[in-house]
């Protein structure tokens, strides 16, 4: 129960942060949140539109990092409650892992923003 509430707050904060940081982001690029809990990225694979910002929040008692396998992005070590955001502008699949606990892996799938609009 507490965790769900916590997640909702995190989501709200992330949306607020990215909305102010990225005024030029297209409206359809909904921003997304990945939680780090129990040494797992949740969701492990997330699909977003180009231009969207993904925010990771560490809910574990130990630090983790978000490190792109292609070295496109890398966070500092996130202590409990710390966040890291990255904006994905180009469609593609972006694999990442925790450089401290490399068995923890995840992926961000970025779809073209215009293509999805047409589909609607």
């Amino acid at each position, binding site marked *: 129960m507490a965790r769900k509430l916590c997640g909702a707050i995190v989501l709200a904060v992330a949306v607020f942060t990215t909305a102010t940081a990225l005024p030029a982001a297209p409206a359809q690029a909904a921003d997304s949140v990945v939680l780090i809990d129990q040494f*797992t990225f949740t969701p492990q694979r997330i699909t977003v539109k180009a231009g969207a910002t993904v925010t990771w929040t560490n809910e574990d*008692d130990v630090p983790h990092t978000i*490190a792109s*396998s292609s070295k496109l992005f890398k966070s500092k070590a996130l*202590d409990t409650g710390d966040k890291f955001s990255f904006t994905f502008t180009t469609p593609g699949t972006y694999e990442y892992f925790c450089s401290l*606990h490399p*068995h923890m892996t995840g992926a961000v799938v970025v779809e073209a923003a215009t293509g999805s609009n047409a589909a609607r």
Partner: protein
Amino acid sequence: MTSDHDDGHGVSRRKILECMTWAGTGVLWTMAGGVPRSMGIIGEARAAEPSGLTFLQISDSHVGFDKPANPNALGTLEEAVNKIKALPVKPSFVIHTGDITHLSKPSEFDDADRIISQARLDVHYVPGEHDVLDEDVKLYRNRYGRGTKGAGWYSFDANGVHFIGLVNVVDLKAGGLGNLGNEQLEWLEGDLKGRPASTPIVVFAHIPLWSVYPAWGWGTEDAARALDYLKRFGSVTVLNGHIHQIMQKVEGNVTFHTAMSTAFPQPAPGAAPSPGPMKVADDKLRSLLGVTDVTFKRGQQRLAIVDQPLQG
């Protein structure tokens, strides 16, 4: 999970599993005839009259950790150091198998130094992944890296025993485990070249050099190559930390041992959804403080383990 030997002394698999508990102390090692023998957890006044070289292993002090599993990791480190100071036989030196700090903060390194230096013993460190959170590993290397290679590996000799400190916590690969890397492995091969096979070897590194539980990352990707260089030696002891519990395994002439943390316990492999810090009741924690005697028998290379709680 463990593949320890059952032997005639009743050291059963069950007993060993029972011993995967936490104690906020260190392990005292002694070299008798070139073969390491654990003297039990420090604080137990059993370290009387060891012959030859005696040294001590502490691990995973996580200075800066303040979560429910142990809100005062610095305090339990100090307890461990006080026990070292109270030993009837002074060890020759200490080995710290990494995760000195929780977040690689200068203040955490300062606090750790302030407490550990009270033991008034030489300390030989290797880093854990928590000690190298800065990209270029400067914080660790500036303090502990003198005379070391790469990210901090080195070797030294004491009383005819060759000690090798390895670093397996940098440049980790996605989906992988601990990593030694080619440069370090080449150095290791050269370091061992020409040494008589009778030289007792002690290797220490943070992450276990054997596959304890790969699903939790408890192993080292390229350890097999290191062990290949070591296999001609008659007595090899591998001391690791990282998993915050005692585990042992014997494979040929190689004895593997992981130490307890001085900060917080972690669950047995697969016993929890993740390897995160394990909260136990305060009174239970004290009853889980244990002593571990490990005896390495020359020739047979089987190890006998006797663990007892400090209380109760």
